[in-house]
């Protein structure tokens, strides 16, 4: 573990992510992509959700990121039951509480790194000048302080993923979700990204990494293994289902 265990706070700390027997079915007849997952992720954790393709990792990420709703079970994100929230409230949750990093980066072409990162605050009503100021800070945090004016197509894959991470953390969300963040990168760049995620976690952000890469997962303190839509192992036993 990177963080040393501190004294327990006076009042109980609630989990950032709490899934109780969560299912997600698609199609007719229903196929369960997520077949009853229960897990807890506490603030400050650095977690890998690992499994082969088709194990339901992406479905789980969508559910944790409130991009999707469970068809059964209860998903609580940041203490809020997703089923109780309408589209506006879920969007607000994503705008302020959750940062996303994608395998394909999803950066806008022909736009500077600074403006790409500033878009991370676009839906929080922060004026543009302030967004750009904070974007510059975020790029500094991910070590791209000297690449502010570069367009995304002038950056290497590793640098692009750093820009995407800066965009995800520019609003200081408590929860950072990363979907195969090293999937499109060479080994060295990938290792640097994992290092960056460790740093962000050390600064207090809860990080959940979805990956099929067991080696990458091995470098993270907690590993939740998925297979066929179910949790098959959880390295620390936190929130172990049933």
């Amino acid at each position, binding site marked *: 573990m990177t963080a040393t265990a501190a004294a327990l706070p006076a009042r109980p700390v609630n989990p950032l992510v709490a899934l109780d027997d969560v299912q997600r079915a698609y199609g007719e007849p229903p196929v369960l992509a997520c077949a009853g997952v229960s897990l807890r992720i506490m603030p400050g954790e650095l977690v890998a959700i690992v499994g082969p393709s088709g194990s339901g990792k992406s479905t789980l990420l969508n559910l944790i990121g409130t991009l999707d709703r469970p068809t059964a079970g209860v998903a609580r994100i940041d*203490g809020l039951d997703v089923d109780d929230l309408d589209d506006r409230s879920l969007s607000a949750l994503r705008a302020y509480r959750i940062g996303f990093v994608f395998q394909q980066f*999803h950066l806008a072409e022909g736009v500077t790194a600074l403006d790409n990162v500033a878009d991370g605050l676009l839906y929080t009503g922060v004026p543009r000048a302030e967004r750009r100021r904070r974007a510059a800070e975020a790029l500094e945090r991910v070590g791209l302080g000297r690449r502010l004016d570069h367009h995304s197509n002038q950056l290497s894959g590793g640098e692009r993923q750093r820009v995407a991470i800066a965009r995800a953390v520019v609003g200081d969300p408590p929860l950072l979700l990363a979907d195969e963040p090293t999937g499109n990168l060479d080994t060295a760049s990938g290792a640097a990204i994992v290092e960056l995620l460790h740093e962000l976690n050390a600064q207090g952000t809860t990080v959940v990494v979805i990956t099929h890469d067991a080696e990458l997962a091995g470098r993270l303190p907690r590993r939740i293994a998925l297979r066929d839509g179910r949790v098959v192992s959880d390295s620390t036993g936190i929130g172990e289902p049933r």
Partner: protein
Amino acid sequence: MSTVTAPPPGTTSRPPDGRLPARSRLLGQDVVRLGTTGLRARPTRAVLSALGIAIGIAAMVAVVGISSSSQARLNDQLAQLGTNLLTAQAGTSITGEQTALPPDTLGKVRRVDGVESASSTALVPEPVYRSSLSDPDATGGIATMAADQNLLGVVSGQVGSGVWLNPATERFPAVVLGSVAAERLGVTSPGTQVWLGGTHFTVVGILDPVALAPELDSAALIGADVATDLFDFDGSPTTIYERSADEAVEDVRVLLAPTIAPEAPGEVEVSRPSDALAARTAANQAFTGLLLGLGSIALLVGGIGVANTMIISVLERRREIGLRRSLGATRRHILVQFLAEALLLSALGGLFGSAFGAGATAIMAGINGWPFALPPAAIVVAVTATLVIGAVAGLYPAVRAARTPPTAALAS
């Protein structure tokens, strides 16, 4: 920072600190900026689909502008010529015979209340030829008329070259030709002789076209005295021209026929030449309506082009939409973004279209020597039309964009 190693108790009910964060918000200035991102990413496509709208708007603005410029010229003309001129003509009797006005008609008309001035012409049945050797059948449609001296003043006519008839020339074989008559006779300057009723007449003047009395354009005008001497003219006028105060025109119009022919007022035709000019414009207006209809079809096709572009754009940008949703955009924010894009696209078309249309109007007005007139209402309508079209064309694609599931960001 603290790492907790044990699950806290009692997480089945909603935690006490589970509070909703602030709402997602998108600033108005950002909406405009977002609306342009799609257009900037694919400028060629944006320009081509805006072109459809531009053509429609340009056509409509140009049609309205050209028509109102020609209307403006007519209004100038009428203001200059006056709309208070009435003409009274001998008509046909119930039995179909051509009637003549009595010789004292002009005197009676002058005594009608409200009449300020009056003049007359009388048809003299003598043909005019270029020379005595001309083919007797080739009259050229030129009518010989005996004209009063004050005729030109009453009908607002002008002498292009030479002079008008005066008390001296009125008694001699002198003729003033209308513009068309001069052209048909091949007379270009005063001093020329023409063959009129078996005598040489000297052309003393050539008139400019007379807008309110176009019948004078193809006439050869001679004095009443010489007409009496040579052609036994009995002084019965054919047409009376009369001007009154503007507000008295309608009153005079009612009185004119009964005054001239109390026993058969139906045989006198009273007309207002300025009405004829206006009627000619009204006919042009009907044509304008047709062109306007064609323009609106072009506009409709342009709108369909915008809708098409937007639908393709939404399909291509599913990932971008998913990303924006993951960044916290609500469905409404996505809807607004795509609607703004469609509105900007058609507003772009409307702007260029209006400019093209105004330019075409200016060119047409310049070529024809009309005053440039483009009613501001036409521009307002054009802009409103483009915004309505943009909204209608953009609504369906925007709704589709808003319905794109947020998970589209992860689906690869």
